[in-house]
């Protein structure tokens, strides 16, 4: 019987799920992803996680709790570094331990370390270790599975770059065409942006109001790399790099009518990255810019008001742009 592997829907699920899914199914395991976040999952997460962790980490705890009696193993990779010379966030590195010591009665945790700090062979090492842990010792099979997983990942990334939401691509839903005049840039970590429960259904709310969006994931990594060269010091967080690079790009893009920066309260990286982006916006950006801060107590009504206000800003700008000067 194939081993059932639980995959919590949180953190870099929205970035790496096709890869993980293809690899695990190819080596003959069965995967059990947790469902989309619900109130129960969030409540469980808040209950078990320590108080001052950030919202996505709490949600992740909730998903792990949900999966505890539904799978034989729980895949919580230790993502120390996913690109050369860069880290993600210390919490990613300690995630397996945080979950292990906080949520009781968990199945065995597969906590392979993905460390590509020195070279990209770190990923291969992690994959071999993961497969060995599941009892698959045939290196050719692992190699083949890794190859397939990589091509699945590439096509997934390609689709996202074309402007499809990762959720739609993962679920195989057809892309939605949004009829609207304004396009906003959405700068945020993927685990905030695509979890529609914790961000109060932000993407749908924008769609309903006829606002199109371009997210961080939809910006070409080369552009991000290029824009990050402007920074005074090498950015050593790949997540922070994505945010800054895409924010700078979206702000300078004339087809983007405004930028929304979504951040979770007490996110360590956003406290610095957000400061940088805000400073840039205040200094050089002449279009609407708004920061939305979420945590587990965020209320729907307050959130709606802010989005409405942002929409008014966008509308106001467009109207003025066609008007003649009021000074005649």
């Amino acid at each position: 019987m194939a081993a059932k592997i639980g995959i919590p829907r949180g953190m870099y699920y929205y970035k790496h799920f096709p890869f993980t899914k293809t690899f695990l199914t190819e080596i003959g395991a069965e995967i059990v992803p947790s469902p989309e976040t619900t109130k129960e999952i969030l409540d469980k997460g808040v209950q078990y996680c320590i108080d001052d962790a950030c919202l996505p980490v709490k949600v992740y705890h909730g998903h792990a709790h949900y999966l505890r009696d539904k799978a034989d193993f729980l895949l919580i990779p230790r993502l120390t570094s996913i690109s050369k010379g860069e880290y993600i966030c210390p919490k990613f590195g300690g995630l397996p331990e945080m979950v292990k010591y906080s949520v009781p009665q968990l199945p065995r945790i597969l906590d392979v370390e993905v460390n590509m700090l020195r070279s990209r062979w770190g990923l291969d090492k992690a994959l071999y270790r993961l497969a060995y842990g599941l009892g698959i010792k045939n290196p050719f099979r692992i190699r083949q599975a890794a190859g397939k997983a990589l091509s699945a990942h590439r096509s997934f990334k390609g689709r996202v770059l074309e402007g499809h939401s990762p959720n739609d691509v993962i679920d195989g839903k057809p892309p939605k065409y949004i009829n609207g005049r304004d396009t906003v840039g959405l700068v945020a970590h993927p685990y905030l942006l695509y979890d529609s429960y914790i961000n109060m259904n932000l993407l749908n709310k924008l769609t309903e109001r006829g606002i199109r969006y371009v997210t961080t994931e939809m910006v070409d990594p080369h552009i991000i790399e290029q824009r990050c060269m402007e920074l005074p010091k090498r950015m050593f967080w790949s997540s922070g790099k994505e945010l800054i690079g895409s924010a700078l790009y979206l702000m300078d893009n004339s087809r983007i009518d405004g930028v929304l920066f979504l951040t979770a309260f007490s996110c360590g990286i956003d406290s610095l990255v957000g400061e940088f982006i805000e400073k840039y916006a205040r200094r050089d950006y002449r279009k609407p810019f708004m920061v939305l801060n979420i945590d587990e107590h965020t209320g729907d009504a307050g959130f709606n008001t802010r989005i409405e206000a942002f929409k008014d800003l966008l509308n106001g700008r467009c109207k003025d742009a066609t008007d003649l000067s009021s000074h005649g």
Partner: protein
Amino acid sequence: MRLTYPHMGEAYIAIKSLFDDIGVESTIPSFTTDTTLRLGAALSPETICLPFKIMLGNYINSIKAGADTVLITGSCGPCRYGYYGPIQQQILREAGYRDIDIIVLDPPREGYRDFYAAVKKLSHRGRTHPLQAVLTAYRVSCAVDALNDLLYHIRPRAVNKAEVRAILHRFKEQVTQACGSAEILKMVEETGNALKQVEINNEIKPLKIGIIGEIYTIIEPFTNLNIEERLGEMGMEVHRSMTVRSWIQNTLIKPMTGRKSYVLEKKLSKPYLPAMIGGHAQQCIGHAVQYAQMGYDGLIQIYPMTCMPEIVSRSILPQVEKDYGIPILYLIVDEQTGMAGYVTRIEAFVDCVARRKKEMLHE
């Protein structure tokens, strides 16, 4: 050029000796107070960690006292500390301090030629060889460490606690006026001798409390509500897991001489956290295990709100607590920290530890 640097507990003594020896004019920022924090917090990003805000306040205090260059250490690790320099520079510039330069001294493992060049650039009079000066500064920090260890022993046992406080107060006053490592070393020695003269009661068997957590908040007495002195005067023997000396040893001296740093801490924390995740999370767990094995009665973990590595170690420490049966108090500090509430918590913790020990002795 008039250099300044942020405060971190007793670090200013070693830094002052370094600058005096290489012949650089420097300003010690005025000691951290509430005003310093308020100055810094007004300009800082909202959810940045506490050290950032205090350091910024320190700079501004020094700039007002005539400094024009700030020297800080850097890192390229996953902790936010590595990005303090660039952001603080930006903030200072926008706050109107336009010609203030921040020199970031990245650790030698990022290329120690750069490190050496930075030190050399600073020493323009060249009275002492820079490397020699660094080593002497290390010796100063060793002496200060020894003084602290003596203090940990004497404080809970002293008959007249005010006497100890007076000696320390005098030391702090003299050291800021001193010039050069020789003078500072002499002062440390004199203070040590004065402390040894204090009448102590050796009958007392004090409880032992270990202090673990984020390096800045445990070293800087302002951020941790002066916990060493407070506990010491309540009759506890405290020990702080991280000191300026251990920091210099593990980030400068060991890598430069090709040795591994924090070997014991990494070994002890391996069952709990097998990988380096940044900051001092591994070291924090390692120290907790070490203290537990050494028979300490309780531990206090202190870290600034939203500190990423310490949040990880905070969620692992309950397991250490269970495995070794050692009580741990978690104190999270930020600029909203209220003194009274924390003191109550510390007192309650001490009571718990004391009762626990009494029960254990009776069994």
